């Protein structure tokens, strides 16, 4: 279970980016974080694996607070948290297989990781995962040769080989066309149910969020204004979240 309590962060003094964020997510749940640009969605997501150091609060993954972890504890916690990015963030020069295997680095000694030495089991698992995301015939191709949707599926495989409890998706489909978006969302949803893990995705597409997510968290100006099951997100809630056109013209 992932529990976030009173999470707060400000980049500049007196200009809070996040204030008092609280939520709880059970395994097997797909949670979408929605809200206008600049509301603080990415800050929440990156605080969860401490790529951004937040200011206050608690982030508990099965009772362990990632915020108070030291360097080696943080490494161990991070390997339980997979991450998927808008721009895929793959090492484009390397093969698909090598990029998937990168997900194992957190489990390896520094030297073995530096040399890129992986066990037979890890290699076999990587190939199995590539099969699962439908890319087995691309295993030995460079990532730079793949399409956007294919790259994102490599990203998913890289996250899964970590054996994560949580997968964080930072705008996973914002660079993809509609068809690829549907494939990626459906794949994520099926996988998290099958593996009983938590998935948290920042999304811009409300319709996709409602279609695939179990729970939706709405963020506006760094505050949580909605947190409920996806079906409860009605027009009134959406208006409150994004504001009307008139409201948006007013200085924030």
């Amino acid at each position, binding site marked *: 279970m992932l529990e976030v309590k009173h999470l707060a962060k400000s980049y500049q003094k007196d200009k809070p980016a996040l204030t008092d964020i609280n939520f709880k997510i059970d395994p097997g749940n797909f949670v979408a974080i929605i809200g206008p640009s600049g509301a603080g969605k990415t800050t929440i997501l990156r605080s969860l694996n401490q*790529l951004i150091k937040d200011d206050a609060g608690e982030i508990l993954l099965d009772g362990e607070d990632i915020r108070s972890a030291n360097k080696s504890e943080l490494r*161990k916690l991070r390997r339980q948290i*997979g991450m998927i*990015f808008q721009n895929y963030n793959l*090492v484009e020069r390397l093969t698909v297989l090598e990029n998937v295997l990168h997900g194992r680095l*957190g489990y390896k000694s520094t030297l073995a990781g530096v040399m890129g030495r992986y066990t037979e089991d890890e290699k076999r698992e990587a190939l199995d995962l590539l099969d699962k995301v439908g890319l087995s015939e691309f295993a030995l191709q460079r990532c730079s040769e793949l399409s956007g949707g294919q790259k994102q599926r490599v990203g998913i495989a890289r996250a899964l080989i970590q054996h994560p409890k949580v997968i964080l998706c930072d705008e996973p489909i914002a660079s993809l066309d509609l068809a690829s978006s549907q494939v990626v969302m459906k794949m994520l949803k099926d996988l998290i149910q099958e593996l009983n893990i938590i998935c948290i995705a920042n999304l811009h597409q409300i319709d996709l969020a409602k279609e695939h997510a179990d729970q939706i968290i709405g963020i506006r100006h760094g505050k949580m204004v909605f947190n409920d099951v996806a079906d409860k997100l009605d027009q009134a809630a959406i208006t409150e979240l994004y504001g009307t056109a008139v409201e948006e013209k007013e200085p924030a």
Partner: protein
Amino acid sequence: MNGSKLTAAKYLGHKRLVQSGVLLLVGLIYVVGCYLLKFDTIQGALSIPKAFSWLAINFMPTHESMSYLPQILNKLFETVLMAIASVVVAAVIAIFFAILGSKVTGINKFMQILVRGIASFFRNIPLVAWAMILLFSFKQSNFTGFLALLLMTIGFLIRAFMEIIEDEAGEAMLALKATGASYFQVIFQAVIPQIIPSLISWILYMIENNVRDATLVGILTGTGIGFIFDLYYKSFRFDAAGITVLSIIVVVIILETLSNQIRKVIL
């Protein structure tokens, strides 16, 4: 609407006035300068073809100057090797410092400032000055030339590599950091594979550049092709000096073509 049109016309008129003013001023400076230096423009212009025909006659390699060719090619080979050696050694040193000093991989602010300082120090002392300074300690030898090229190349490459890392490696680095990979794993598994094409491209460029520069350094340090050129030139064997210059040009063009081909393959 009307008002802004008027001001636009006024602005453009003003700009034209300033431009004519500047042109007039430059012309005036030229005329006054010519008068003060007693420089005859027409005479000067007429002497250009004469100078070129002198060059063509004297520097034109003859049948006899071909006998110098083995010696020239020998020295040229030495110079090309020196250029390559200096760049390869500089690249190894520079990548190390660039990783320490870049904004995304750097270990701390102090190191970043230090590395930037070192890079700009090496880069901003002209090559000729490096060669002259090093001459005192290392005398006239190939090593002096190598060292002068090395120091300047390190300065250039640190700066270039840092920018490459900052531009190209950030995203993949973030992803690997998120998997729990350690610093060295991130460097070797994400940063270096990601930047290798740009790295090689810069290394190739510096090799071309250093073959040209090595010629100049050779004149000062008395080594390589630069020394041979200087020798022929000062002993009035202009035809031999001519063939030296020609062979340098040919080699540089060959190197450039070669490295363009390599770039096409790796990028």
